[in-house]
């Protein structure tokens, strides 16, 4: 893991300052790749993809976390892992197939539009569902929502069942219970799940490539396009920026919540 994961990721910083040649790169020191990133439309696209990734995180949390709470709080111990396995099911089908499969669902004459038109809810197909930022957000939510359920499920291990009873005895309402009790205790897992969704929203090229329109470009797509254009230092600069973003987020998360607690329920 050190040799083939940590080292290659650390080396992206070194390779990003190499000189670009016609088909490859050569050792040297230049910040041209970073200039190329920060002083072009790429930065705007990167910041835009950050905004849409954050929206995806919020949507995934709103729809996914209550499921994790329900599984932990209301289901018998023996049934909990089996119900979580249900969320692994869609995740086990290739992401690329799932994303491609969204096209016939979201497009003009796709499943959603034809169903809504058959029901008489709309007269004209909704065109904003695909080849727009909305399409990318839909793709991100459907691809990554299971992760907030998994991490939320692990996080809820830190919230003993009797806490719900104590809250009930004191007449604490669901909102106060959620904000004052569940959220602080389950914070490490929620944070890890959110970082996962945020970083993958920034880095999975497939989603803007297949579901996004002209303006939908994220860091992963910039890196892939740079490799296709044989601009390896730029690809490495994008990778280094992504790694720096990830490390900063994980460091902040660890300082605030001690992220090793995520796996503590497992031993």
């Amino acid at each position, binding site marked *: *893991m050190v040799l083939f994961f940590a080292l290659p990721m650390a080396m992206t910083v070194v*390779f990003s300052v190499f000189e670009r040649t016609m088909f490859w790169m050569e050792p040297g020191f230049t910040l041209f790749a970073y200039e190329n990133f920060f002083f072009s439309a790429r930065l705007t696209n990167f910041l835009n993809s950050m905004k849409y990734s954050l929206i995806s995180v919020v949507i995934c949390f709103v729809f996914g976390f209550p499921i994790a709470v329900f599984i932990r709080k209301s289901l018998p111990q023996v049934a909990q892992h089996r119900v979580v396995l249900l969320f692994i099911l869609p995740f086990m*089908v290739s992401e690329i197939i799932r994303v491609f499969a969204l096209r016939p669902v979201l497009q003009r004459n796709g499943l959603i539009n034809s169903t809504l038109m058959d029901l008489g809810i709309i007269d004209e197909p909704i065109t904003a569902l695909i080849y727009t930022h909305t399409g990318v957000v839909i793709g991100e939510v*459907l691809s990554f929502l299971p992760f907030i359920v998994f991490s939320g499920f692990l996080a809820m291990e830190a919230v003993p069942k009797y806490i719900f009873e104590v809250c009930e005895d004191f007449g604490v309402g669901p909102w106060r219970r959620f904000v004052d009790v569940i959220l602080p205790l389950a914070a490490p897992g929620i944070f890890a799940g959110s970082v996962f969704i945020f970083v993958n929203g920034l880095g999975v090229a497939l989603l803007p490539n297949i579901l996004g329109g002209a303006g939908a470009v994220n860091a*992963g797509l910039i890196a892939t396009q740079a490799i296709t254009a044989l601009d390896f230092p730029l690809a*490495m600069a994008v990778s280094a920026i992504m790694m720096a973003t990830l490390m900063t987020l*994980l460091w902040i998360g660890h300082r605030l919540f001690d992220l090793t607690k995520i796996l503590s329920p497992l031993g």
Partner: protein
Amino acid sequence: MNDYANIWLHRLKWTYLLLVVLTLMTPVIYVMYISFNANGFGANEYVFTMEWYGLIFSDELLIGALRWTLMLAVVVTVVTVPMALLAAKYYKAADNKLFPVFLLLAPLFVPPDILGSALLVFFKNLNFAFIWFGDQMRTSLFDSWFRLSFLTATIGLIIYTIPYSFVVILITMGRYRPEQTEAARACGANGWRAFWDIEFPQIRAGVFSACSFTVILVFNEYTRTSLLKGGFDTFTTVLISQMLNTGMSEQSYAMSALVSFIAIAVIGSIILATMLRAETLSRVARAKAEPVMS
């Protein structure tokens, strides 16, 4: 008020949960539905056919790719699962868990395109370094060690699958009590026998689940494999290149549906096996707990 006090609230929550799972599965189910239509996507008339599935198996390119994919899946599984098992054992015993947690789970957080690009450039540079070293030693022995090939794709996939296997094995290990190993050692068993005869039977389900997960993940992986594979094709890379070049043809729908059917069948079997095993164990436990009437 708890859920059981209000059964309708409980049922409502179950309905919501199943609705979310169904929504997540909708694209896949819809693809399966289209794959059996003789007239393809968007047609007004639905005519059931298996024709598109027949076409897949007559495609030489696809069968070759399938062979490579299976080989890759076997090699990655054989390496990944024992490594994940050792990592889980090390993690359980470690006092400082921060480093193993970071190293083993970090690949989960790195997007596929970023990890794939970083490994691609790393391997290309490593290959140049090995060739240079070979030139200095006046030998061609080191020439193609890290040229993009089956080996580099395997390494990339091992890095990708280890966190999943690690977590799955760790979940089953959570139920194992280490005092049993200590007892076995106290009775004179060596380390291997204590593991093989006492611990492994209890974590076997997790190890086999990790194997299944690894095979499915390798089978489904596209980005890292396509960046690191070199000259051969896998099932998914063929499928995706066909989709990207000619769009979603009826054959593409059938191929996607086939991959999904296999993955769902494997996971479905695991869920079923887990349920049956839990049922058997609880029946045995109940039988043991019953008082003996004499």
